[in-house]
């Protein structure tokens, strides 16, 4: 949590979000949540047009902005027969405008994981994160229970927006805008903004308590986390649940903290020109998102597979999301409580289904 005084120094009031948006759009490519005619919400790069942005409450797109930082598919390096050459991504500055607390927490988590990854970091340094406090729980969300929301953790964004509803509010919203980083502060320097005062910060905290109180208390999640860390879950339970794992990879694709990837080579069978008399093999090495739920994920060249059984793979996934063993490195659980896995799993073994079943089994 930020020091109260610092926060006050860099806190402003904003009546019209468009002012901020348009200002940032001058220096950054704007990326924000857009809703289409079917109600589908997606993180979309705005190509010049202004669309009404969607914020926070009830608008958690199924796909997080993970792909803007950790690319779904990208070239790493190429080989022309003699030399290896790194292919770093070509980037333009982008602003992710209106990222919810859960996804920001996940980005901070991935920042740690990919700390020494040049590809991730090249994109990362060109991204401005504008977070937004959520005003109500989303359908599968339990961010409060895993310390990932509903308000933005100050260390996870450059700018934070929080809608203040004043007592006896009129129709107009008033936004609290907090610059959390140097980068954030610089991005709004040119705007003449009214400063916020203590009253506004207190109101934000009051609103936080109100939102938190609206969350369903999924006690089975806390219970199941305990059972998991106590090693109390019988193997039979994982076997029962894992029969339903189709290895579709939906959970790992949508989980905003999942970071596993695989590399492969594309070989150009017919090189454009030969160099002297050597056979020129032009290859390009790419990386793509992988999933630990695939049987082949951990299979070794000998054929031996430490995670041969689906039960082992499913157990491993939840271990990675809820084990205390990752706390020293990441300071938090891998799960940010977004609930996307529950929605996308065709086998009904997303986080709610699994934790409920664990609680049920281990309680008795």
């Amino acid at each position, binding site marked *: 949590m930020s020091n109260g005084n610092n926060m006050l120094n860099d806190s402003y009031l904003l009546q019209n979000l468009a002012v901020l948006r348009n200002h940032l759009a001058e220096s950054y490519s704007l990326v924000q949540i857009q809703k289409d005619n*079917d109600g589908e919400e*997606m993180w979309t790069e705005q190509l010049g047009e202004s669309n009404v942005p969607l914020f926070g409450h009830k608008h958690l797109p199924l*796909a997080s902005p993970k792909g803007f930082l950790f690319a779904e598919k990208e070239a790493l390096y190429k080989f022309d027969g003699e030399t290896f050459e790194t292919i770093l991504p070509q980037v333009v500055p982008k602003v992710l405008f209106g990222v919810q607390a859960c996804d920001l927490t996940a980005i901070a988590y991935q920042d740690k994981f990919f700390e020494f990854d040049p590809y991730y970091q090249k994109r990362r340094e060109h991204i401005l994160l504008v977070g937004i406090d959520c005003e109500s729980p989303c359908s599968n969300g339990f961010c409060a229970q895993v310390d990932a929301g509903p308000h933005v953790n100050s260390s996870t964004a450059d700018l934070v927006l929080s809608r203040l509803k004043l007592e006896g509010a009129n129709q107009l919203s008033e936004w609290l805008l907090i610059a959390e980083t140097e980068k954030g502060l610089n991005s709004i320097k040119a705007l003449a903004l009214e400063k916020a005062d203590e009253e506004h910060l207190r109101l934000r905290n009051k609103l936080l308590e109100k939102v938190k109180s609206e969350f369903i208390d999924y006690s089975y999640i806390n219970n199941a986390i305990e059972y998991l860390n106590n090693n109390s879950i019988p193997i039979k339970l994982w076997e029962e649940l894992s029969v*339903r794992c*189709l*290895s579709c990879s939906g959970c790992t694709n949508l989980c905003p903290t999942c970071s596993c990837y695989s590399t492969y080579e594309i070989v150009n069978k017919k090189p454009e020109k030969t160099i002297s008399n050597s056979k020129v093999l032009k290859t390009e090495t790419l990386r793509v998102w992988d999933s630990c739920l695939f049987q082949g994920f951990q*299979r070794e060249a000998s054929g031996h597979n430490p995670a041969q059984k689906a039960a082992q793979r499913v157990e491993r996934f939840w271990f990675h999301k809820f084990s205390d063993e990752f706390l020293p490195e990441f300071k938090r659980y891998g799960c940010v409580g977004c609930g996307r896995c529950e929605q*996308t799993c065709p086998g*009904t073994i997303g986080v709610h289904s699994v934790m409920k079943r664990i609680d049920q089994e281990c309680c008795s």
Partner: protein
Amino acid sequence: MSRTQVKSVCPFCGVGCGIGLVASDNNIITVQPLLKHPISQGKLCAKGWNTAFGINRHGRLTQPLMKKNGKFRVVSWQQALTHIAKKLNKFISENGPQSVGVISSARATNEDNYAAQKFARAVLKTNNIDHCARICHSPSVAGLKKTLGSGAMTNSIDDVGKADVIMVIGADPTENHAIIGGQIMQAKLRGAKLIVVDPRKTRLAKVADLHLQLKIGTNIALLNGLLNIIFAHDWQNDEFIARRCEGFDTLKAHVADYNVEKVAAITGVKGADLVSAAKLYSQANAAFLAYGMGITQFVSGTNNVIAVSNLALSCGQIGREGTGINPLRGQNNVQGACDMGCLPNVYPDYQNSTDKKVREKFSDAWHTEVAKYPGLTSLGMSHQARHGNFKGLLIFGEDPVVTDPDRNKVAQGMSAMDLLVVIELSMTETAKMADIVLPAASFAEKKGTFTNCERRVQLIQKAVEPPGEARIDWQILSELAKEMGLPELMNWQTSEQIFDEMTQLTDSFSGMSYPRLEQNNGLQWPCNKEHPDGCRCLHSSTFPIGKGQLISVDHVPTDEVPDHDYPFWFTTMRLHFHYGCGSMTRQSPLLERETPNGLLFIHPQDALDLGLKSHQGVTISSRRGCVETRIEISDQVSPGLLSMPYHFKEAPSNLLTNNAMDPSTEMPELKVCAVKLVPLPENQPPRSSALSDAGIGVLQ
């Protein structure tokens, strides 16, 4: 640099999940599930998630190719089309329109398919138009036409969630229609009862309340046996039978012969289990019955379907929510390919091609004469080619060399043709055998419609440009029609024009238009005056033929049974991670990594008895051919039964399969034949049966 998104429909199976295509720099870089899609609701299976690999630029054909002296050379579109037109005209004038034909793609759009049958009938003047439904659900189309009057899935996918009993016969939905498979598992969690009828212990069989692991090829005995039990206990739906069926008395008398003891002996299923299944299904408030290739791919395929229909009709489990006879159509648009009339015996919307009035209607609409004589099926075309009567074939997006039965015969047929033109995304085994290969646009590179298994016509949108000089199927046919002297006939500028032309000539689609499809997440046919917003449940008050027909059918043995020379039963299956001939899914390193080391699935006891080690190389042979691969020890099969997936060109199971046919549909008996197994010497790796680039077999 920036990402754009387009909403479309998954190109793999018949579920028709919504899928978001994310593009950057004219490349699909990833896909996303769609939360608001009524069927998929934010889910995708492994194949769907790996869609981008399947159409990636690197593996694609980008220019027309013509084979000269055994090697493919790049030619221009004009050269290719002129050559094709010249040859086709020659064959037609010398040998008649019966000597040429078209195989359309069940993966291409309704617009592509409509164009294909129009080209065949109005340009080539032939009814030789067919597609892979021939070897998949043609018995469903024919069988249900006889019993109900319509061959499509009677209910909707979400009826799974409204059933208290679900029965799955000869299908593996968690692997092949994974989102539906998931819904079945979820229904079970919520209290529905699940009955699985399958010779293999599939994933659903593992979670089922009842798994009837019948001997392969005994479907009719089992189904008649269930009816015998139902009638004996008076568990049938008398009210429904009286009001809506015909033929009950005959059927009842007929199945009296199929008593429990006899049926248990034929099927290998315990009498008590047969009784439990009969009771569950007949006494359910709403029983949803789904079936697949395990019913259709037999010489008795059509009769198998009729037996299924008899069961559902006798129990009144049709025409209401949560019920139905639900053939799981396999491909993303095989329903559409059938609906668009890419079958020798019907025009779009199943209007009979032998009916003079129908021919006149289309002749008038198209301002030209149409084909006069009955057409050949795909197997018929192959057969006639081998006998020198069939000269020229256009194949769109289909790989019969890998996916059709009796590969040696298929290859002979292809070689015998004077002109084989293959229109494809990539160089498949069939494309290797072609005289001319034309580069096709994929689903992400065109606008059009797909029809999923629940009759839902959905729009797909263009996300990127086709690579190189690749073109859309209907564009290619349009150009070819011009080359062949009919410039006005297929002169479309957009796919919407084709769709609108089609809706005016059909009843089931007459209420549809692109704007309506866009507003509604698609529409389920029939969509006409009677059902202006489409129809989620067919046959709710009456059947197209009036009353449902109960038709007596008998158990027949399969064409081949194991004997001294070929002692094992052999069947075919699909794996979750691959699709069809593998031309798309095997481009994904993640899916390819899931390919098992061994492709011949064998029971541990059989492996032990034969002294086989895990993943040992073996030769499997049938009367038709042989294949070398490794074994995969599995408890999915039973002793005496071997199984292979058909996705792998290096070990094509179809070198072994039997093309003995179901008489009414020419459906080949892909699901069963007899084989023998000989281990390869230890440490000798299996040899690949993949064709060389020139299309020459290595092993055979």
